[in-house]
């Protein structure tokens, strides 16, 4: 049976006293106490630290928003330009940009999601924003055409965040560009901005 016994040890010089609790008192042979309460305190501290670190690590969800935004840009760029030539549907009959080009429909995008476990209007809110800007490289006037889809309110998140870690709860923004030609070999720079919110699923 484990017995707590307060053992007082007197230092050789007799000035100080050291006391500690011992679970196992001296046996008949004179062997010493072994497992002191200090050791259990250390074990509890180590176990607590490990549990805390593990739950912190595994408790936070994987953030896949940047990957998702990049995949979306790939899909949109493949849809807007194929083999280095801009999609013919982007232009109307008079060779100007088609204002009625439906980015979601033409690029097979769906921005609404209905979750079983999260019913209500919040789950149907647009979690994405997509913008494509067209710049004429032979014309210094700058942007000649733009297309956008999704929740435009998310665009403000990009300006606030700017990659700061402390703003991880804001939407993730990815901005990429590529070059393409139209049917008359006119060169364009296309800048695509993709924003993914999905904060609840990716950030704790």
């Amino acid at each position, binding site marked *: 049976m484990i017995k707590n016994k307060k*053992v007082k*040890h*007197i*230092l*050789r010089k007799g000035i100080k006293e050291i006391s*500690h609790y011992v679970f*196992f008192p001296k*046996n008949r*042979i*004179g*062997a*010493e*106490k*072994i*497992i*002191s309460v*200090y*050791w259990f305190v250390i*074990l509890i501290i*180590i*176990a607590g630290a*490990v*549990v805390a670190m*593990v*739950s912190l690590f*595994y408790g936070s*969800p*994987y953030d*896949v928003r940047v*990957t*998702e935004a990049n*995949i*979306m840009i*790939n*899909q949109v760029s493949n849809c807007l330009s194929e083999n280095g030539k801009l999609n013919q549907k982007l232009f109307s009959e008079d060779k100007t940009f088609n204002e009625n080009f439906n980015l*979601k429909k033409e690029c*097979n*995008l*769906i*921005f*609404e*999601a*209905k*979750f*079983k*476990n*999260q019913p209500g209007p919040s789950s149907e809110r647009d*979690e*994405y924003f997509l913008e494509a800007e067209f710049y004429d490289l032979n014309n210094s006037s700058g942007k000649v055409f733009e297309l956008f889809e999704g929740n435009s309110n998310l665009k403000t998140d990009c300006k606030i965040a700017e990659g700061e870690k402390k703003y991880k709860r804001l939407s993730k923004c990815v901005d990429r560009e590529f070059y393409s030609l139209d049917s008359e070999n006119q060169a364009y720079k296309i800048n695509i901005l993709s924003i993914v919110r*999905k904060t609840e*699923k990716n950030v704790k």
Partner: protein
Amino acid sequence: MKIKKRGKTLFTSSSFFTKSERGEILVENVLFIVLNIIFISILILFLFKQGSGAALLEQTYSKQIALMIDSAKPVMEIKLNMEKAQKITEKNKIDFNQVVSITGNVVNVKLSQKTGYEYSFFNDVEVKAFPETNSQNEYTGVYIFTINKNGQ
């Protein structure tokens, strides 16, 4: 460690590895080592269990499948190795056929009776998911995803 003077113990340190004067194996030392081994084993088991838990795998698979569908183009057939999920479903007594379900553009992965994880994809395609079976009609641990244009 002991310091003796005139036959009396003056100081005893709290060191666990005390030398027995008579060269005996102390029961307490053995107990101490055993307890330490048990403690470390529990910690390692805890770490392994946390890393392969159903909740974590549900999230991983759900996001992986959603990203996979996002990158896919019609008409594609994608095979995903889900052996880890299969082992967990066997433990939790869930049919492997019911692990992945796709409703609209939402992927739902369920590895236990009570849990489940959903993640949406933006690619507007029709996806069908079913587990692969061998000639004996047993599950191989692989899930097959077929990607088609919506409405086909």
